[in-house]
């Protein structure tokens, strides 16, 4: 689905490559979490994938085609929901459809309505974003990401601003959405527990600059519930990941 081949990137203001000769690939329909300490460059991987940054060297392909030749190949959901306050929730969801063009107004409305009820926000289309709670806003933003129609979803710490209980509810909700829509999801987080609970494979950033992403399989089948986090092998995996990440943190 997504493949990085010997990709390097350097920020203009820095004198080293933050992404250095990185290769990895992600197969269709999988759920990967990229975990790493803050500022390690994991968001840079996303910004290279969605084309906001151009790699210095190497090639990024999606479905075998270099991303330079593709349009609307990935749905990107940034950390903050970024719902536009001057548009209603429905109009926000319509944004990717409007930009793609070629749909009548009625078709857009129909798709937006369907997407809203899909994420449990039926009837919220005419509300203003500020009328929604944090969890509802994230669900609306997720629906907007789905409406890009891309099979590859890049979610950059989408739940980090939510309170704990909303966050765990949203994690379960996201897993259900993933299984229903059969999308390929790449999910950035610095929360190890979140990564273990969500993904079938965790990609660990072990050092900056990023040379490799260390794949760690999560030994648990879907559908999952939070109870499985208490299982000894998962608890052990969690501790192991925390140990790797802690080495990079200097308090």
């Amino acid at each position, binding site marked *: 689905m997504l493949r990085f081949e010997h990709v390097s990137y350097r920020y203009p203001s820095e004198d080293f490559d933050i992404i250095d000769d990185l290769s990895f690939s992600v197969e269709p329909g999988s759920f990967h979490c990229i975990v790493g300490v803050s500022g390690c460059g994991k968001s840079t991987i996303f910004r290279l994938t969605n084309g*906001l940054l151009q790699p210095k060297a190497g090639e990024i392909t999606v479905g075998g085609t270099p991303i330079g030749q593709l*349009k*609307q190949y990935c749905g990107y959901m940034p950390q*903050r929901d970024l*719902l*536009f306050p001057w548009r209603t929730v429905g109009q926000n969801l319509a*944004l990717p459809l409007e930009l793609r063009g070629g749909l009548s107004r009625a078709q857009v409305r129909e798709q937006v309505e369907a997407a809203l009820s899909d994420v449990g926000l039926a009837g919220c289309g005419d509300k*203003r974003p*500020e009328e929604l709670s944090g969890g509802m806003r994230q669900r609306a933003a997720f629906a907007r990401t789905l409406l*890009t129609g891309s099979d590859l979803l890049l979610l950059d710490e989408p739940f980090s601003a939510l309170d704990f209980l909303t966050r765990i509810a949203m994690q379960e909700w996201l897993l259900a959405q993933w299984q229903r829509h059969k999308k390929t999801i790449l999910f950035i987080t610095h929360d190890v527990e979140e990564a273990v609970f969500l993904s079938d494979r965790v990609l660990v950033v072990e050092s900056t600059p990023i040379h490799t992403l260390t794949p760690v399989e999560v030994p648990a089948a879907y559908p999952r519930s939070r109870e499985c986090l208490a299982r000894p092998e998962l608890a052990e995996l969690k501790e192991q990941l925390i140990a790797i990440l802690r080495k990079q943190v200097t308090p």
Partner: protein
Amino acid sequence: MKKANRGNLPALLFLLGLLMLWQLGAMKVNAAYILPTPVQILQKLWQLRGPLFTVHLPATMAVTGIGLAISIALGLALAAGMDASPLLRKTVYPVVVASQTIPTTAIAPLFVLWFGYGIWSKVLVCVLITFFPITITVYDGLRSAKTEMAELLFTYGATRWEVFRLVKVPCALPYFFSAVKMAVPMSVIGAAIGEWLGAQSGLGYFSRRMMTQLDGAGVFAPIVLLSAVAMLAVALLGAAETRLVKWRGETE
């Protein structure tokens, strides 16, 4: 609405008190040619309603309207241009700021020499005064657009123009209203200054003519009318703003 009225009540009472003080003071001075009472001004306004409302008010409104329209068109174009091109910004921004240091009142007589007693010398004064706040404020509004929002649209495949239309314009809209609300009273002042210095009609011109006749109330009457019109225009703009800009003050 009721709440707003209640909020204005102290201000209204204060204003009434000031007017009463003025009335009493002026009655004591008893020299209407230099200090007319508010009542005398209102009486004068009523007496002169014919020429004031049919000749001079329309003339001033034409100057203000044309001046504002030019300022807005020019200001918006320049703000958008500066936002799109850093080179243009570097070239124009300092000049626009410098233009504001010109003492307009002092060089306005020159405009009369250049453009005559017709409407255009007044329009130029108006434009010079209002162009600056509109350009700078709208430019700041366009800059205030969140880069994250623009980036999100780029990942949806948006072009620069689409980002401008979908993110920058809505972000700049509240700024635009602030700018125009500032510019309306300024343009009225600009028009009045221009007319005062040389014109054939207009409220400023009328006020000056009354001055030469030592008619104090006649000097004040058109000025009262000017302020009333400016306040009305600002109130209308405020109403339009509340209808169009529902998200003002939100931090997102």
